[in-house]
């Protein structure tokens, strides 16, 4: 039963991914990505990674995609109107063939590499609290990976500062008002 769910969700994820790439309207891309994330979260859940599934929804779908949506709305990019659903224009360019070839090559390589993993070992019963219990994650995260954890927090701080600086509207100095405190 869960296997079936997996395959369905897998198909959904791929469809969502394709939607991101092919859609003309950026808002449609965002929504496709959302669908993809949901499918992925389900897959994580079915595989026994409960915390990760929650994190996926909370952070990815709930924060990052919202951010994308904000920016699209801010810049007024999502024009509705007589636009084709699929962006056909991108295929007409010179490098499109090459790009698709590259992607296909990667896929093929991975497929061949993976073709060896055929064993179906039974993990019949998943533990109740999942494969990634908070205790287990915490034990690793705060002990062995304490330093990267702190570094990540620093990274977040830096990002916050950087985003503010980057997105700030730079005001041209106005002639006549030379207040030294103005940045």
């Amino acid at each position, binding site marked *: 039963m869960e296997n079936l769910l997996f395959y369905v969700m897998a198909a959904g994820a791929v469809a969502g991914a394709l939607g991101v790439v092919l859609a003309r309207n950026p808002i449609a891309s965002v929504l496709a990505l959302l669908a993809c994330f949901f499918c992925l979260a389900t897959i994580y859940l079915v595989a026994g990674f409960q915390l990760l599934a929650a994190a996926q929804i909370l952070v990815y779908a709930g924060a990052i995609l919202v951010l994308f949506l904000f920016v699209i709305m801010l810049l007024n990019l999502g024009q509705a109107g007589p636009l084709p659903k699929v962006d056909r224009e991108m295929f007409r360019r010179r*490098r499109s063939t090459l*790009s698709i070839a590259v992607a296909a090559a*990667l896929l093929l*390589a991975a497929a061949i590499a993976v073709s060896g993993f055929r064993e179906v070992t039974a993990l019949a019963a998943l533990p109740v609290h999942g494969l990634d219990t908070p205790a287990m994650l915490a034990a690793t995260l705060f002990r062995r990976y304490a330093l990267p954890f702190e570094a990540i927090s620093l990274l977040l701080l830096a990002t916050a500062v950087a985003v503010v600086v980057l997105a700030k509207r730079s005001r041209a100095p106005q002639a006549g008002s030379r207040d030294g405190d103005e940045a």
Partner: protein
Amino acid sequence: MHDHAWLWLLPAAPLLGSAICGVLHFRTLAARRKDAGAEGSGRLAATIAVLAMAAALGLSLLGLRTLSGMPAEERVLQSPAWSWIRTGEFPIDLALVLDPLSSVMTLVITGVGLLIHIYATGYMKGDRGYAKFFAYMNLFVFAMLLLVLSSSLPGLFIGWEGVGLCSYLLIGFWYEKGWPAEAGQKAFVMNRVGDACFLLGTFLLAKTLGTLDIGAIVAAVPGAASVPALSSRLALAGLLLFAGACGKSAQIPLFTWLPDAMAGPTPVSALIHAATMVTAGVYLLARLNPLYAASPGLMLFVASVGAVTALVAGSSALLQRDIKKVLAYSTVSQLGYMFLALGSGAFAAAIFHLVTHAFFKALLFLGAGSVIHGLHDEQDMHRMGGLARRMPHTFATFLAGAAALSGLPLTSGFFSKDEILSAACANGGAYWVLWVVGLLTAALTAFYTWRMVALTFFGRERFDPERVHPHESPSVMTAPLWILSVLAVLGGALGLPAVSRLPHLIGRWLAPVIEPGLRLIAARQGGAEHLSAGIEWSLLGLGALIALVFAHKGFRACDDGPAFDEAVARAQPLLARFLDDAWGFDRFYQRWIVQPLVLAGFAIAVVVDQFAIDGLVDGAGTLARRLGARARSMATGQIAAYGLWMGAAAALIAIFFLLRGT
């Protein structure tokens, strides 16, 4: 016996003098740039240089006295050695050795050198490079002293090269005129050819005998020469060293630089190209006499080259118009006599002639310089004449020198030349031919010498009395002339012939040094060759006769001007040109060696250097630039393009790992 460190003072004195004069020269240049007067430093330079020479002479005399106070077999003073090259099995040390032969050389170098330096203080007066001149001269004496005092062949070679360098510097002293610079270069390059042979000979000796210390070589040669495998190698080494001597001492085929070297100031010609540098080759062979005595073929070769050179040069002097060129060819000719002596086994006679030649040839050059100076740089004898009245001192001393050169009886040149010819005659066989050649050359020598005297000092005054006012030279120039003339006339006392039963001073003095060679010759021939007393006296008489007859002929032919020369030129124009060109040697070299080399050089400069090498180097640069331009076109600034490259590379890596099966 190794603690005579004071020997180092001998070359050090002129070296110091040279350094001081050099400094003074630079001060003069600086003062001249600021337009300040700098005449004082010129006089100071001259004084320092002369003092340095005097000091060197004093030390030479001290050495002579020390040596003469020692028993004959032990007459060697050695200075402490300075280790120069320390390789495992072949250390090369520099040390100075004073023995009878080197003491004779140092006396000649410093004695005649001192007189020439004094003369030069007057001759070079007013020259812009006065201090520089004395710096070079002292430097030369330093190098020459190193040459004759060195205890090893590498040390000798240092001096050898040093005198070559100073010769180049002094020949080209007036380089602004153009041709002296070329003459200096010609001298240097020809010397280089000889030097290359010298070095090869040295290497061969080192390989064969395992040492380059001269004393050790001299001691080892007699033993090694008896080994058949080694004797041919030793003979080859001797031949190569002789080739080096030919370059330095201007023998065929490397003699054409000497007449051109007359472009330098006359004191230079006197010191370097008459008395000292050109005698370095003679010294070398005398020093290594066992090496040559061991090979009779080599000895005959040396003697033949000397004799032929003497003839060729002597004949070339017959029709020269430039007074210095006559003396130049004469020098080459007399050097040929010295090598004839060496090749005949008469080592002492060669050195004796070296000494007398230094006296009278320096005298003649200085006298010619006096004439040139008095006539305001006129060197063409056709424009001289009648100077006997105007320049009495120069005239008298010049006569003495001419007498000695032509070998008039009882002069120093008479005795030394006769000894050489007797030695050649005594050897018999092929040497008789050489003896005849020597006699012929003696006749030529007398002829051209007195032709020179006649044209210069007798007859009508052919110079322009408006422009030229000949006057006697100042006493600072004539005093050395008088001293040298006394030596030229009386110097024969150093080597009176054996038949006269009077002592041969030089022969006795040099005996310890030349004895190894003489012994080898005697062993081969079974006893020394001796001419009977009767033949010896006849030879003396024959020499005197030839000298007197041909001197008279030469004098009479030219005592009323250039009529003789013009007659010969009209009657035998080809012969006249042939002799004037010194038998065409120079023209031959010019056409067959110099010009092809210049063409080859030009070809290499254009083809190889410009096309190939520059093309390669520039091409590398151009290639880099073009590749860069090509690569630059990849930087479109389009992120997607970069992404494509990255993606393609990632895909390739993935496939690579896949195939590798990691």
